[in-house]
């Protein structure tokens, strides 16, 4: 590296936030933001543990339901509404993270309603105040709801605010998908300490558990993503040698394959039916882990569906998906310069590795029985909690260090649409690399920089990350102007690019905002919206409380009037009747203050009646208590 380059590198780093926070962060958490389920964990008494909800459930279904009153349900509450409101209930949002509106994922079997013409990012049209499809949400916003729910769960368990979070991502997530995940974290009000690769997190949990040095393969097949990492563990240093994967391959695909078979003979497939078939397929998949055959039964709109499925047939349906992982595994081993025989162990991660065919396949591929002794659903979150503890400076584990790599090559577009790779895949991060280009025309004053990610040689086959132009190059003959382009990849795998004309030091730096990512302005707008919604939530809670109170008072007054009918004069009856009607009308409205006022008015006109009841009750115990308390006796 050169002087000025190092200078620049250390200068650029200042932009990044975690370095600025020196104080140990209180209560760090690790979050596994999964396609199907999400979890939150923390380190307590030196051991990582998953935080469960009030009902002792550790797994939060990654499902978000948007209600017509503008409210949002997350997790099991959302799952319960999925069949009735299939399009307002978003599952597997992770598969759409960082994806464009025209991505292939949008054309696969599912019950989503996509918002048309909403810009380059995928957006779902969901219910809101104002009815069906009243609002559109991006996958980032959906993920933020899940993160918010996990954060709330942790804060309830701690009785204190969460300090910072490590959020896991598939190792093979590209720049746009990582950026989207970090945006979701910011949107949920979390300080993101690190984006940690899922297989690396799992290795951390396993490595600490087993205290065994060696070379390991981590085979991570989740609900929607597949990762393979080859990792060397030497005395607490976890060094990723190579990684590979497919961010659109997972257990969801098994469900789709089975659901497609269930719906083979059905011509009309409304969203609710698809959702019901997918749910039935998933349950059947779970049963086939133990059983060798099962009967799939489900109902939709009074129509019954019933099919028998034997495991062999299930295996045939999913085999193409499972086999797709083989080539990826072989390439990762080639990149790591190892053969199956060099491996000391294979670790299974992700719920989909419970499928017997997958286990058999992994055993045959690597030639050894895989480890699966830590719950494959929890292991990633546990590892994330350990890393959060380390990064927050609260942990004592000084012996542990994670060294990860870039999953995909980063490069620049050259003349003729060819890619020049600047940072090759599987480079250890953080890293920097520079390349010098000369001007190609006389008196050229600008240079177009196009940053791409991928392994292919042609720009058209790679993911476009960013375009920018370096301006202000002084006019010089062709070939004399020298532009140095420096890539800096931070520990989260996020990229920053600097272009500098060397003779004049004209420089331009951009934090790469992927074409499908969110700009800072968009994140800010969403944050503002979420604050507004939080305010809306407060209003709504007040309204609901007043409605409940109104219903309670109306019921109590009616029963008291019925019990002491003779004490109700005609005048009292008319006045109380009018006040009760006013209260009923107010309770039907949305103004909490109006309900409160109507309750007070009813209380006031009921005073003579309450006094009369009080006199009748005679008992000295009753005397001296407030009118309200006397009424209260009956309201109970």
């Amino acid at each position, binding site marked *: 590296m050169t*002087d000025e380059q190092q200078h620049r590198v250390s200068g650029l780093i200042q932009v990044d936030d975690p370095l600025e926070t020196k104080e140990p962060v209180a209560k760090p958490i690790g979050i596994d933001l999964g396609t199907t389920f999400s979890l939150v964990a923390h380190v307590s008494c030196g051991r990582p543990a998953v935080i469960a909800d009030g009902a002792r459930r550790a797994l939060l279904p990654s499902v978000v339901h948007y209600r017509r009153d503008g409210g949002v349900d997350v997790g099991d509450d959302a799952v319960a509404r999925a069949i009735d409101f299939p399009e307002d209930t978003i599952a597997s949002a992770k598969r759409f993270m960082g994806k464009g509106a025209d991505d292939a994922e949008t054309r696969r079997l599912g019950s989503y309603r996509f918002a048309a013409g909403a810009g380059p990012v995928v957006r779902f049209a969901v219910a809101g105040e104002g009815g069906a499809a009243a609002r559109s949400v991006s996958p980032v916003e959906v993920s933020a709801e899940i993160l918010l729910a996990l954060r709330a769960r942790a804060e309830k368990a701690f009785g204190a605010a969460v300090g910072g979070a490590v959020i896991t991502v598939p190792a093979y997530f590209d720049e746009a998908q990582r950026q989207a995940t970090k945006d979701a974290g910011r949107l949920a009000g979390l300080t993101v300490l690190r984006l940690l690769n899922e297989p690396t997190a799992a290795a951390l949990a396993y490595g600490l558990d087993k205290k065994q040095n060696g070379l390991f393969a981590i085979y991570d097949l989740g609900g929607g993503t597949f990762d393979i990492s080859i990792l060397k563990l030497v005395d607490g240093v976890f060094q990723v040698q190579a990684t590979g994967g497919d961010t659109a391959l997972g257990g969801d695909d098994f469900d789709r394959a089975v659901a497609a078979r269930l719906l083979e003979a059905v011509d009309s497939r409304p969203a609710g039916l698809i959702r019901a078939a997918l749910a039935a397929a998933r349950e059947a998949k779970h049963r086939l882990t133990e059983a060798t055959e099962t009967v799939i039964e489900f109902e939709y709109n009074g129509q019954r569906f019933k099919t028998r499925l034997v495991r062999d047939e299930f295996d045939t349906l999913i085999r193409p998906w499972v086999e797709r992982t083989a080539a990826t595994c072989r390439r990762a081993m080639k990149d790591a310069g190892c053969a199956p025989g060099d491996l000391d162990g294979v670790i299974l991660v992700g719920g989909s590795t419970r499928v017997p065919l997958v286990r058999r396949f992994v055993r045959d591929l690597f030639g050894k029985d895989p480890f699966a002794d830590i719950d494959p659903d929890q292991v990633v979150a546990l590892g994330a909690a350990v890393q959060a503890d380390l990064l927050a400076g609260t942990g004592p584990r000084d012996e542990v260090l994670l*060294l990860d790599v870039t999953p995909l090559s980063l490069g620049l577009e050259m003349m003729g649409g060819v890619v020049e790779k600047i940072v090759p895949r599987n480079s250890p991060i*953080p890293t920097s690399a520079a390349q010098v280009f000369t001007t190609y025309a006389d008196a050229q004053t600008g240079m177009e920089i196009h940053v791409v990610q991928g392994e292919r040689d042609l720009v058209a086959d790679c993911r476009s990350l960013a375009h920018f132009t370096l301006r202000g190059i002084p006019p010089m003959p062709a070939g004399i102007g020298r532009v140095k382009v420096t890539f800096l990849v931070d520990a989260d795998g996020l990229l920053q690019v600097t272009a500098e004309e060397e003779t004049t030091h004209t420089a331009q730096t951009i934090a790469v905002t992927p074409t499908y990512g969110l700009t800072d302005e968009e994140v800010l707008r969403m944050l503002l919206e979420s604050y507004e919604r939080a305010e809306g939530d407060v209003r709504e809670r007040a309204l609901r409380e007043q409605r409940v109170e109104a219903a309670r008072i109306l019921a109590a007054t009616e029963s008291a009037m019925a019990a002491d009918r003779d004490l109700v004069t005609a005048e009292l009856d008319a006045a109380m009747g009018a006040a009760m009607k006013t209260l009923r009308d107010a309770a039907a409205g949305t103004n909490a203050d109006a309900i409160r006022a109507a309750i007070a008015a009813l209380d006031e006109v009921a005073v003579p009646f309450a006094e009369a009841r009080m006199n009748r009750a005679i008992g000295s115990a009753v005397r001296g208590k407030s009118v309200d308390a006397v009424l209260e006796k009956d309201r109970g």
Partner: protein
Amino acid sequence: MTCWNCERDARDEAVCGFCGKLQPLARDADHFTVMGFSRRYAVLRDEVDTRFRELSRRFHPDRLARESAEERRIALQRTVALNDAYRVLRDDVKRGEYLLKLWGIDVGAEKSGQASAIGLGGGFLMEMLERREALLEARAAGDRGTEERLFAEAREARAAALERAAAGLDEEEEKGDRKEGAGPGAGAGADAGADAETGAVAVAGALAGEGAGRLGEVAREFARIRYYARFLGEAADD
């Protein structure tokens, strides 16, 4: 070097002997210096791996979570430099090309069309052309056997070229005081402090004066290795 913290002489140590604070890397440190190796080709992959882990342990910013922002910034600078050095030195081809670059010969400056200028010889280019044609024919005929044989031959040829290059580098190192960076091409100004990226001159230029020097032959081997690598890139990435 003066310690940024206590302002006493920290010498060239990574950690100040007086106050114990981590010091920034010297500005002119090359990849060999960064990893604490002397400047020579013969470094074992295991040594590189072990040194990489040792240094990561010492300097990785994640290990300094409780230290000051300044120290963690220095740690990051050292780690970025270490990762870059590791990427180059652990690879037999990249390490060799880098060494040549430090000595003023930039194999990478060779682009298509200039090959004859650095003296690869028409024979070599014809040979590569024939390989490519044979590959195309085999593919058109769906002849996997021939395809695999062509790749196997190219792999062998690449290995042989690398062996010759390595021998050449070892010989040059034995012959003289190249440790300090005074190679045949050093006239171009590629001493330890110069910009390895830009200070080196194209092979064509460097060899103009050196002609048939041993290092020139080494550079040609690396240029040939690039041709083989590109050819092997055609092999299905499995």
